[in-house]
């Protein structure tokens, strides 16, 4: 018998938690972005696990679409980082307080 699905779900929860921690604590925008990718991957793992547990292909199709959206998001996000860097010469989140009220 293969490994039970709840183990995969707990592993995905751990990955998501670590990614969320990094996103909240780190200041370098590039590393924050990598943590975001980590969280997306944790969700993908959850979807594939549910797809196996429920014997339904829809979970895997969702992962497929998440992949496409993640690729688009990375392209636009890195474009934004390059644009910010051009103006500010640095990419830490603490330097970007222009919109602070």
């Amino acid at each position: 018998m293969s490994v039970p699905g709840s183990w995969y779900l707990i592993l995905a929860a751990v990955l998501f938690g670590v990614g969320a921690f990094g996103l909240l604590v780190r200041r370098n925008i590039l590393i924050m972005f990598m943590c975001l990718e980590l969280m997306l991957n944790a969700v993908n793992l959850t979807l594939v696990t549910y797809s196996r547990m429920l014997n339904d292909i829809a979970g895997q199709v969702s992962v497929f679409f998440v992949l496409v959206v993640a690729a688009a998001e990375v392209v636009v996000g890195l474009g934004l980082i390059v644009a910010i860097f051009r103006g500010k010469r640095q990419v830490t989140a603490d330097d970007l307080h222009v919109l602070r009220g």
Partner: protein
Amino acid sequence: MFAAISAPDFFTFAAAAIAAVAGAIGVVTLRHPVHAALMLVMTFFAIAVLFVEQGAQFLAAVQVIVYAGAIVVLFLFVIMLLGVDKKETVFPKDSVSWKLPAGLVLSIAILVELSILAKGVWATGAHSVTAAPNGHSNVGVLARAVFTTYLLPFEATSVLLVIAVLGAVVLARVSKIQEDISSESALEDEMGEVNAR
């Protein structure tokens, strides 16, 4: 509980899980962005192994090609291009002092919540009676679902990708007006220097 799991399955899961968590912790704690990106590759590979373990072979291949290949290479390109690959302190003193404990508390809350959800029966829903993903070829079943039931969303993703490409082009190129302003100001600076002499 342990006796019911076959040894190869267990060891594959354990190795991949350890690699994934170690990579994730590496991404969060390493100072150098390039090292963090390489740790991210390790996590992506481990997750691809877990996909194969669960019979999602096509997604595992796509995971390696798109995530570990394209996306991380894009990250490395930007890191190298901007020259921001210098080290930074992971938990700097000068930033908001309660940031680290607050982040820790919030992420542990998320972790506990998700773990409770993972153990719950009510979160798993009903079993599908048709279209078993296992048994047939994974690619075939996935392709049938994508090109019949999910055809409209699939076509919509192509529009999304075009928009993303256009957005990236618009963001990345220096606009003509901005260029003029910067060259004018450079000219003024030069004139000022000449006048000062």
